[in-house]
C-alpha cells in the first residue's frame, strides 16, 4: 500500500501518569505489571460506591514544574499543570528550543476544562430563592453569585476547553496553529491525529500534541456513578481495572497527561533531532448509535481502525501489536474485540493486544496520547506491555491480551485505539522509525 509522501515523526514525548512523573518511570513501573490505582485522596468519596482512582503524586507535578510557568498556574487546572510538566519532558527530548521560527510550531491538545465541583455547587445552592406556590418554584440569584465572588473570574479560563492549548502554547512559545479537541475519551488520540494532518498539510513543521485530564472530583465522578460505568466491585484497588477479564465490571477513573512532539521528517533530520518513532496514519469516525452505548458490532471502531491503516498505507499483515482502548467495562472490551476481529479477520488471534488502562486506569482526554507514548516506547524497547489482572478468560473475548507479564517482542507497527463516550473514535497507526 502506498504511504503518504510527507512523513511525520515523533521527536519527543513526555507523560505524567499514576505510575510515574515521566515516561521512563511510568514505563518501568508498567513493564513490571504494577498498578497505579489506589484509594482516593483528592476528595472525600465516602458516599460513593467507587472509592478508588489513579491519582498522580503531587510531588511529581511540583518537581517537574518550571518556575517560569508559575505565572500560568492561575489559569490552569490540575490537568493542565500536568500537561505543562509532560510537555517540558517532550520539548526537552525534542530540543524544541532550537527551532528558531516559533510560528512553525503548533499545539493540539485534547482536554475538557474544569467541572464545577461541590464547593461551587454549594455557592450556587445558597443563591436559590424560593418563590411561588410549590417548592420547585423560584429562581437562582446569579447576580448575587456573581457579586459575592461565587463566580470566580478565573473560573472562566479554567472551564474553557482551550485552556490547555493556550497555556501550553504560551509556556513553550509555540506560535503556530492551535487546535483544542473535546471528543471525550478520544480527545488525546484525535489531537495527535489532527496534528499529523496539520504537518502533512504544511501548516506547521512541528506540533506539540497530546491530551490531559484530571476529573478526580465529586462532580467528575457522580455522573459515571449514576451511569454505573465506574467499577464498583473489587478486591483491592490495584485489582479493579481488569480489561478483557470475565470479572471486569467498570472502568477506573484516572488522571494524567501525555505530550508528543510531532515533526516533519525532513525538518527533524535537518536539525538532527532525535527520532523516537513515526506517526504513520490516523483514522476517526463516529458510532452515530447511542450516547451511552457503543455500537454493538463496533462499527465506528472498525471504521477508525481501517481509516488509520489506509491513511498510513499499512496493510493488516503489517500490524504487530494493538494498544487497545480496553476500558474494563463489559461492553467496551467485548465490542473492541469484535471490531478487531472484523478488521483483522483470521489474523486477529495472532496479534498481541493489551490495555494500559489495566495499570494506569482511564485518563479520559489524556488516554489517547498517554497510550500512544506507551506504544512508541514499547517499540523502542522491544517490549509489549501487559494487560494486568487478567485472571478469568472471558469466552467472548478470546484474543491474545498479553496477560499479566510484559512480552519481549520486536515490533514495528502498532495500532492505538481511543473510543470516546458519546461515540467518537480515533485510531492511530504508529511505527518504529526505520530510517529514510
Amino acid at each position, binding site marked *: 500500500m502506498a504511504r503518504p509522501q510527507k512523513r511525520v515523526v515523533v521527536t519527543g514525548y513526555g507523560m505524567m501518569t499514576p505510575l510515574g512523573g515521566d515516561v521512563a518511570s511510568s514505563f518501568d513501573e508498567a513493564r513490571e505489571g504494577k498498578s497505579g490505582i489506589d484509594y482516593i485522596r483528592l476528595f472525600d468519596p*465516602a*458516599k460513593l460506591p467507587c472509592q478508588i482512582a489513579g491519582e498522580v503524586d503531587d510531588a511529581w507535578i511540583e518537581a517537574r514544574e518550571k518556575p517560569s510557568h508559575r505565572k500560568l498556574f492561575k489559569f490552569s487546572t490540575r490537568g493542565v499543570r500536568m500537561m505543562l510538566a509532560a510537555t517540558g519532558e517532550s520539548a526537552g527530548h525534542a530540543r524544541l528550543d532550537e527551532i528558531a521560527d516559533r510560528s512553525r510550531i503548533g499545539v493540539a491538545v485534547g482536554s*475538557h476544562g474544569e467541572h*464545577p465541583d*461541590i464547593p461551587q*455547587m*454549594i455557592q*450556587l*445552592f*445558597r443563591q*436559590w430563592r424560593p418563590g411561588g406556590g410549590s*417548592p*420547585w418554584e*423560584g*429562581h*437562582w*440569584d*446569579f*447576580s448575587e*453569585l*456573581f457579586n459575592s465572588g461565587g*463566580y470566580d*473570574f478565573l473560573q*472562566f479560563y479554567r*472551564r*474553557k*476547553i*482551550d485552556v490547555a492549548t*493556550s497555556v501550553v502554547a504560551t509556556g513553550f512559545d509555540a*506560535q503556530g*496553529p492551535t*487546535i*483544542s*479537541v*473535546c*471528543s*471525550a475519551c478520544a*480527545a488525546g488520540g484525535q489531537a495527535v491525529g*489532527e496534528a499529523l*494532518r496539520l504537518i502533512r498539510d504544511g501548516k506547521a513543521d512541528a506540533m506539540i500534541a497530546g491530551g490531559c485530564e484530571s476529573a478526580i472530583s465529586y462532580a467528575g465522578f*457522580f*455522573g459515571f456513578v*449514576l*451511569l454505573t460505568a465506574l467499577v464498583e466491585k473489587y478486591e483491592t484497588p490495584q485489582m479493579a481495572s481488569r480489561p478483557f477479564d470475565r470479572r471486569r465490571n467498570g472502568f477506573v477513573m484516572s488522571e494524567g497527561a501525555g505530550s508528543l512532539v510531532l515533526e516533519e521528517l525532513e525538518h527533524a533530520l535537518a536539525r538532527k533531532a532525535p527520532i523516537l518513532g513515526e506517526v504513520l496514519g490516523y483514522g*476517526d*469516525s*463516529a*458510532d*452515530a*448509535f*447511542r*450516547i451511552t452505548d457503543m455500537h454493538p458490532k463496533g462499527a*465506528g471502531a472498525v*471504521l477508525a481502525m481501517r*481509516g488509520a491503516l489506509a*491513511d498510513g498505507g499499512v496493510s493488516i499483515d503489517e500490524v504487530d501489536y494493538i494498544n487497545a482502548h480496553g476500558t474494563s467495562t463489559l461492553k467496551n472490551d467485548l465490542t473492541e474485540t469484535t471490531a478487531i476481529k472484523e478488521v483483522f479477520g483470521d489474523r486477529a488471534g495472532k496479534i498481541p493486544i493489551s490495555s494500559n488502562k489495566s495499570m494506569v486506569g482511564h485518563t479520559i482526554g489524556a488516554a489517547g496520547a498517554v497510550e500512544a507514548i506507551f506504544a512508541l516506547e514499547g517499540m523502542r524497547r522491544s517490549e509489549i506491555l501487559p494487560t494486568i489482572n487478567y485472571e478469568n478468560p472471558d469466552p467472548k473475548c478470546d484474543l491474545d491480551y498479553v496477560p499479566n507479564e510484559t512480552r519481549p517482542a520486536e515490533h514495528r507497527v502498532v495500532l492505538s485505539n481511543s473510543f470516546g*463516550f*458519546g*461515540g*467518537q473514535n480515533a485510531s492511530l497507526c504508529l511505527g518504529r522509525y526505520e530510517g529514510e
Partner: protein
Amino acid sequence: MVSAAGRGVDAAWEALCKGKSFLALEAGQGLAGFAPISSARCAPIDPGALGANRRAARIMGHQTHMLLAAVSEAIEKSSKDIGGEETAFFAGMDSLDPGESDLVSAALAARKEGGVDLNKFYDEGMAQIPPLWPLGMLNAIGFCQVAIQFDLRGENGTFSPGPEAAARALIEAAESLREEKARAALAAGVSPAVSARSVARYINRGFLPASSDGNFPRPFSGAGAAALGEGAGALLIEPGKGAWTGGAPVMGYLRGWGRATALDESDGLKEAIGDSIGAALASAAISPGDVDLVVVHGAGNLNEDAAEAAALLNIFSARRPRALATKGAFGHLLGASPMVDLLLALRALDEGVVPPSPGVGDMARDALEFSDVPVAAKMKTALVLSRGFEGNCAAFCASAA
C-alpha cells in the same frame, strides 16, 4: 441555519433584507439581578419536530437543539441521502454551561436553614441529579447526539470554543474532502446559549459591557460594545465534481481559506487579520480585486473593529468592495458566527443582493461600501472574515454557483 430570526436561511435572509435587528434589552429570562443587557435569542426549538426520539431529546439542551435544526436544514436542502461512513462531520461547539434547572431538586433536598447540608446532598440530593448532567457539560455529547440523529459515521471532530472552533471545523471538513476521506462533509457551528452564566462569563472576559444603555452593538461605530446572539449554522460540502454528478443543488463554492494568530491582541491584530485574508486569497488563487463582497467580522468592540478596518483598508485600498455586517442584526453568534456569515454570503451571491447592515458605523467606510437598503449587485466572489478569542483570525473565500 438558526438565528433569532427563526429557523432557516430564508428567515434570516428576509429579516436581514428588511434591515431588522433582533437585539433587545432584556433583564428577565434567567438574567434576574443583572443590569439589562442586549442580546438576540433564538426561540425554543422542539427536538421532537426534528425527528429526535423522546428518550434522546430528554438529555438535549438548547444548544443541541440549535445544532440539530441547522444540520437538519443542511441535509434537507442537499436533496441527497446523506449519512453513513462516507459523510464526515466537524463542528465548532461553543461553551456549554451547566444546566442549573437540573439541580433544583438537589438544591431543595440539600438546603438547611442558612446554608447547605452536605450529608443531605450526598444522601438525597445527588440521586435527583440526572445522570447525564455532568456528562452533558462535555461539548462532544451534543455533537454525538446530532451524529446519531443523522447517522453521520465518517471522519469527525469537535472543537471549542469561539468562532475559531467553527472556522477550524469548516477547514477540517474541506480537508477531509481534499484528502478523499469523505464523499461529503458537514461543517457546523453553534453559539452558546444566552444564560446568566454565559453573560457573567463574557462580562468577566471584558467582551460584554456590564450594562447596556440600549445601544445595540454597532459594528465599526466606535461604540465599543458587543452583544450575544444565539444561533447555529451548518454547511454540507462536497467535491465540486461530486455535487454536479450527484444532482445536488450547488449553492456555491468554497474556494479557499486562511488562518493567522495575533500573539499580541492589542498590537498584532491588524497584521493577523491581513495575514488570514492574504492566505485565503492565495489559496483561492484570486487577488483583492476579485472580491465583490466582504462579510466582515465586525463584533462591535472598539479596538478589534479598528484593527479590522485598518487591515481591510490596507488590502482593498480605495477600491471599496461591497460589504455586509450581520452582528447588528443577530448579535455575536460566537461558535456559529463564521458558518452563519458564510451561509448569508452565499445567499447574497446567489440573489445578487447586498442586504443592509443594521447599526454599522463609519470606521470601515474608507475600505468598504456598506448600504442602508438592499442593493442589487452582480457578484461572483465573497470574502468572509472571522475572529476568535486569543487573536485567532480566519478568512474564507466563496464564489457563486
